[in-house]
Each structure stands twice: as C-alpha cells, then as structure tokens.
C-alpha cells in the first residue's frame, strides 16, 4: 500500500476528529444534559462540569413532572410502552405476513409475483401522507381510528417491504437442491419450509426483524396523524412533552436518551446486517 506522508496522516487525523465530533457531540451533549438540573443547564457559558443528578430520570419513570409552577402528570412511560408495543407487534405481524410471502417470491415464481413485490417496494418510496390522510377518514368510518390495531396495520407500510425484500434475498440464497433433497428424502412442503428454509434463512429473518423494529420505533408521521395522546409512541409523545413541560430541559434530554437507547442497542447488536437492511438487500456489508 501507499505509504502515507506525515502531513497526510495529520490531515486525515484532523478530518476524522472533526467528523467524529460533529456526529457524536449532540448525543454526548444531550446525554450530559439529562443528568443536569435546569440551573446548571441554563448557565452561561455552558459547561461540562456539574454535579450529576438522576432526578430527571426518576421523575420520568415515576410519572410526575415537577415544573416550575406546578406538579404535572406525564405520560412519558406510557409513550415508551406504546413504542415498544407498537414496534413489537408490528414486526411480529410483519414477519408472519412477510416471511411466507418472501418465500413464495423467492422460490415459487408465479404469475404476477414480481409485480406484487415491486408494488410493495414502491410503497416504501411513496409519500406516507398520501395514504395516511384518506386512511384517517376511512378509519373514522370503520372504527379503526385511534386503535392499536389500526396503527399496527399502517405500520406494515414500512415493516413489510423491508422484511419482504431482505428475507427474499436470503431465501434465494438457499440452493434449491437442498430443498429438493429434503423433499425426496420423504418430507412434505411444509416440513421442508419449516425445517430447511426457515432455519437457513434464520439470520436474515432475525436481521430483517431487528431493522424493521428500529424503523417502526423511529416512525413519527403515522402516529402523529393517527394516534391520540394515549396511543402515542415516544417520537410523537416527546414533541408534545416539550410543549407541555416548557422549560424542564433536563427531563426532555433524559426522555430523549431513554427513547433512543433501545434503537442504539439493537443497532449495535445487528450491525452486521445494517448495511444490507438499510439498502433493502442491495448491498452486503
């Protein structure tokens, strides 16, 4: 390889430091803020030296917010719970619907299969409001408005194309001969699907599930349009929270940290599959 000169290495080092600083600083700063009281946050100039406190997290978890004027009930924990419930159930439903379909698209080419697969893919790129706005009116009529069921259904819009296209790739990678061998050995179609195809595509299914969870968790617009306060996930809840609490910035920061922690953890855990998932299977990491 090319031997880098001292100057070049220095420049690279500086560039990389700036990059890391730009992308990491906000997370770091909000993290610090979440352990501060309003007093230390409002200091000018801002400083990294303070006495850390857990009161922000404590009051978020206990559900009572001590504002400057009065004590408020806050639903942050219920928002967090909504996020968890919506994401887990959406992904579960998405896997139940998407994995068999992915198998059909990958292994049993049938008339219209490509058209359906591409239509589903194109949903991934259509403006979500285009579907959401008419849906609010329909949901009012059929009673799905402001229900978990309605939300879970709409969440399939992001979850299903992702699962379908990632898992399909993993099914395509299974040599047909292996499945044939299992059939010829005397096992039926379903046995071959569950004992051969599913285990061999297992890592892909897990990765797709984790990524779909991250996308569902991070979604904002679906719940903003379709959910009222008691069904809202953290993404929407946090926005309401900032208006409600007004000036208790430490708690907002703590709320943000709690809201992004799960996706960070999952991303670290599933990092090997992130590239593939983010590009819907077009690029392998």
């Amino acid at each position, binding site marked *: 390889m090319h031997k880098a000169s001292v100057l070049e290495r220095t420049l690279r080092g500086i560039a990389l430091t700036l990059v890391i600083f730009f992308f990491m600083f906000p997370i770091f700063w909000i993290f610090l803020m979440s352990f501060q009281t309003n007093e230390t946050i409002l200091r000018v100039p801002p400083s990294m030296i303070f006495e850390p406190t857990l009161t922000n997290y404590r009051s978020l978890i206990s559900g009572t917010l001590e504002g400057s004027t009065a004590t408020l009930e806050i639903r942050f924990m219920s928002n967090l719970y909504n996020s968890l419930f919506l994401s887990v159930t959406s992904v579960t439903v998405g896997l139940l619907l998407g994995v068999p379909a992915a198998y059909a698209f990958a292994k049993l080419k049938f008339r219209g299969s490509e058209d359906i697969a591409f239509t589903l893919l194109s949903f991934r790129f259509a403006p979500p409001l285009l579907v959401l706005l008419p849906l609010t009116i329909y949901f009012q009529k059929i009673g799905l408005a402001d229900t978990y069921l309605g939300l879970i259904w709409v969440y399939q819009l992001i979850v299903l194309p992702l699962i379908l296209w990632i898992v399909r790739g993993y099914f395509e990678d299974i040599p047909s001969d292996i499945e*044939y061998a299992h059939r010829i050995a*005397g096992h*039926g179609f379903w046995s071959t699907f569950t004992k051969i195809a599913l285990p061999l595509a297992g890592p892909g299914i897990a990765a797709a599930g984790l990524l779909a969870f991250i996308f569902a968790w991070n979604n904002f617009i679906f719940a903003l349009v379709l959910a009222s306060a008691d069904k809202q996930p953290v993404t929407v809840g946090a926005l309401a929270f900032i208006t409600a609490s007004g000036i208790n910035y430490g708690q907002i920061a703590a709320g943000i940290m709690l809201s992004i922690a799960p996706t960070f953890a999952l991303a670290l855990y599933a990092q090997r599959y992130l590239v593939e998932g983010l590009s819907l299977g077009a690029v392998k990491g």
Partner: protein
Amino acid sequence: MSLSLTDIRKSFKDDTVLDGVSLEVPTGKTLVLFGPSGAGKTVLLRLIAGVIEPDAGVVEIAGRNMSGVEPEDRGIGMAFQNFALFPHMSALDNIASPLTAQKQSKSAIQSGVQSLARLLKIEHVLGHKPKELSNGQKQRTALARALAGKPEVLLLDDPLRNVDAKLRFEMRLELPRLIKDQNATVIYVTQDYKEAMAFGDEIAVINDGRIQQIGTPEQVYLTPANTDIARLFGDPVINLLEVTPQMGASGPFVAVSDQPVPLPASHSGDIDRPCILGLRPEALSFASPETPGTIPMTVETEAPLNEKTVTLAVTARGREIMLSRPAGTPGPRSGPAHMVINASAALLFDRATGELIQGTTDAQAQGKVA
C-alpha cells in the same frame, strides 16, 4: 420397481432441455445416463424425482403414472452431484432424514444410520456438520442419505464428480457392489465413460436433450451409434479416417494408405458414399513389413496409459493414427514401422451425419435387386 419414461419433454423459456426422451429400466437394473454437461441428465433426474414437472410425457414407477405425485411420495433416493447436504444438520441427522420422514422409531433410526455409516466408513464423523466434513466424507454422507430410506428407485447424479481422484478410484470399486446390495432400480448419471462401462447394465447416451443410443456397455463400445459416441467411449480415443468405399474383386473395401481394408459384403450398397472409418487403437497392431497388407508409417511417440501402451504414428499421407497394445508387449519406440488393421473391428460411419452404417443385410440387398 421398474422405471419407465415416455416421450419426456421439458423447456425452460426458449431453451429445450429434453426433447422426447424415452427410457425403460427393469426392476433391479442399473441404467447409466451418459452424456456431456448440459445434455439434460440432471433435469431428467429431477423430473423422475418429481421436483420439477415435465412439459409433456409420462414418468412411470412400477407401472404407476407419477404425474402429480409429490417427490416425497415417490419412494426415491437421490444423491446430488453437489451433495446438497442440509448445512444446519449433523451428518447423522442428514442420513436419518429419510428415516424420520418414514416416522421410524428412534432406535430403528439409530441402527439404520449406524449400519450405513459403518458400511461407508463415516461412523467417526456422524456428529459433524457438513462444513466440517471433507469432500469425500460429504460424498459418503450424501450417498448414505440417499440409501437410508431403502428406496426402490435410486438416482445418483454424478456422485463421484466432485471428489478427488484417489477417492473416485476407491468408490468405483465399492459403489457397484453397494448398489447391487440395495436391490434398487438405479439411474446413474456420469460423464466418465469408465464409470459408465463399469456400473451400467445398460448405458443410455444422451446429448442435446435426446437419447442417442441405448445398449449394454459392450454394444455401446463395439457399435457406437455415431462418431460422437465412438469418440466419447474409449481411451485412447478412436481413430477416425475419411474414406470412400470401393468395390473390389473380393467385395467392398476402403483404402487406407493405399492398402485395401476389406469391408463386410453387407456394405456393397455403400460404394462411393463419403464415409468415416472408425478404428479403435486396439484394432491396430504392429507387423513386420513382409506381412501382406501392412501399412507403412512413422512412429512419433509412445506413452503408457493404464495397462496399455499407446503409440502415436503418422501414415505416409500424414494422417495421425493411434495404436494401443497391452503394456509390456514389444513394439517400436520411434522411426519407420508397419501396422495391420483388424478389419473385422472396423466401423463405418456416414460422413455427413456421423451415424453408424450398419450395412445392408443380405435379405435387404436381395429385396433391392428384386
């Protein structure tokens, strides 16, 4: 279980892979399906196994039409060229797969796998996953899995293709006995003519999706249906010389280096027809110049080949000829020499089509006259 295929056709998009294939394999016999890659052998096996459906034609096992019968219900065992082992299961579970499908008891499965593993010498690796197995062990595991269910029809798709030469040599000796012991009807696919000759009760030569010849190994070797088959069977390869039959005083003959090689009288109808003369290297032998009818030539080089010694020579006309003789017998190493042709082993092919000319029988010749 006898196996019969009638006029099987299969195309993928515009690509015709099988173009009217018909075959019969009697119960307990082994048919070798021999042909170059891309001839349609593997597709044919898959059709028999039922994992793909033919566009037209009938597959019958034990006289029963298999159309619409699922692969798992056909009572077939199959070994794949690429082994197709289940990568997430141990060798034991791979081999046990047909037995679990038959819902056999745990102990029956255990003993069934053990006895096969002992037979194929893979007992010590039964706990390993396929990726921990050597190629030879994979191949034996795949074979064991194909045999485990005691199938009455056994399909072996070039099982020795992807193993090293030493193992192939061993298995060539072991496999025929193993197959015979199964009492199964076997279709064995190979591209190796020696395997074909060694394993087959019959050989079906397939090319471009058509069966070109079916016969016993001797028939295929001694009377190949065309020059392609003649070239594919035999090592060293058959000598093919362009000739034109002529009529002489004692009957039809062809001239090789100005020496007449007599043809059977049945070739009287082929005078002046452009032909190819096929001479197996072992039909040619060295002779002293005094022997009548010898052909002069120049020996270029010689090489040992298995139990034979092969000599490459050039005739006076510059045509290359290969002769073979049993190893250890004397023969010239280089320089001028003479050879004689065993005319009774000569084969005559049509030059335009490459088909073997069987020669019109006397009866037909008389018919023509009358």
